[in-house]
């Protein structure tokens, strides 16, 4: 506990940075994947191409991607934007298929009923399809948030500081405790993200639990 006692301020600071770097890819990834997923769901012909194509994005190895992005984006090599854009791409890769599945999980009779009631297509998406796709969408979002929190660590290799710094530094200087603290802090953040998402789901979708009881 020696190392942690002396460096807890550093750990807290890095945790804050880590959280900040993790939130944006999840939020932006969702915002980008949502219209893509809707298009893929609504127009099956496009979907047949779009869903596998977005899935392929996930197979891009992360380190080459982070090195290639500054060239593509014209950003400096140490710019955190590279990391955020890269992780957003992975989030989109995971979420497009999940959104298609989530929209597909909406009961057909309910969708028919919403047409018959006189929801406009726009209202139907926001007030019927999206909320009802919520539970399946949430389970996908939980996977993405956890994977993003862990991937942010890799940013340290390309010079974007996060809790990953503790692994690298601890490794280099032979301080196992520092590495361990980095790992544990990352896991704790992943749990917190997951907990927040579950809580949000309960607040936004009270019906999903009551329906089961």
């Amino acid at each position: 506990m020696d190392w942690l006692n002396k460096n807890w301020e550093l750990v807290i600071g890095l945790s804050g940075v880590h959280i900040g770097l993790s939130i944006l890819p999840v939020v932006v990834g969702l915002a980008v994947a949502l219209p893509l997923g809707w298009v893929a769901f609504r127009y099956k012909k496009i979907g047949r191409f779009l869903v596998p194509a977005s899935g392929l994005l996930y197979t891009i190895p992360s380190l080459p991607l982070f090195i290639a992005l500054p060239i593509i984006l014209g950003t400096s090599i140490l710019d955190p934007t590279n990391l955020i854009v890269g992780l957003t791409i992975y989030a989109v890769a995971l979420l497009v298929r999940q959104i298609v599945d989530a929209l597909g999980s909406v009961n057909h009779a309910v969708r028919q009923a919403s047409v018959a009631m006189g929801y406009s297509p726009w209202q139907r998406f926001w007030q019927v399809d999206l909320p009802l796709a919520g539970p399946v969408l949430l389970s996908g979002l939980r996977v993405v948030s956890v994977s993003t929190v862990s991937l942010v660590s890799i940013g340290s290799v390309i010079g974007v500081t996060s809790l990953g710094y503790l692994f690298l530094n601890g490794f280099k200087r032979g301080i196992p405790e520092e590495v361990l603290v980095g790992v544990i802090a990352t896991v704790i953040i992943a749990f917190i993200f997951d907990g927040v998402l579950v809580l949000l789901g309960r607040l936004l979708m009270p019906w999903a639990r009551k329906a089961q009881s």
Partner: protein
Amino acid sequence: MIEFRSVSKRYESDALAVNNISLTIAPRAVTVLVGPSGCGKTTLLRMINRMVEPTSGQVLIDDVDVATRNPVQLRRSIGYVMQNSGLMPHRTVLDNVTTVPVLQGVSRKVAQAHGLELLATVGLDAALAKRYPAQLSGGQQQRVGVARGLAADPNILLMDEPFGAVDPIVRRELQGELSRIQSVLAKTIVFVTHDIDEAFLLGDQVVILREGGHVAQQGTPAELLANPVDDFVADFIGRGDESKHLSITERDGTRLVVDARGRVAGILAAEDGHGLAQ
């Protein structure tokens, strides 16, 4: 008044679901579309609120072609009740009932006050208002479905096998409830079912459809039973069915109505109306 003028519908490359049907539906009465599955009855119903567009022909409401109306506005002006209620699982009972008025821009408060009255109209306790549909029985869900269909006070109410998925006792209750509500509200109701007994029970007018999307015969239940135009209709309404051939017999001083096989179908009401029949 709803009018079908030479309406046909063909789903992608399939056979005709509706074949050149012309039909007039009387206002402020219950018209039942009845027939075996695949006769096009639901397709016909959904043409009224443009959930299905006819391949050819016109559907008119009060002499206005529905094809000229904005489909979203049109649907909000017509009540719709479907099988398995089609309630929004993520909305409370009261929010479900007030769906259409709120879509039309009525304030939530006003819509909810009216919604609570409607729950009473369909025989539901106000305590259920805050529940979610999944917390209700099938029969209660159908009642909510009816309340939702009535919420915007539409002139026309479309009902697509609304009582098809509930058990027989609840179905009879709901049918009775609908008759009672209709006697007060006098809507133009178009009701789809495959159950001829339900059709005769509820219909002022009954339209019998046959496979391939043809009208086999239209009339009041009495007209259809008295003069079926062909074997299909006679068969479909169960005219050859022994249980429908009734005669009167007297046992132990009580006049009973029995069917062709001698099974008791009921008790003959005394002519002064104060007999044993209840």
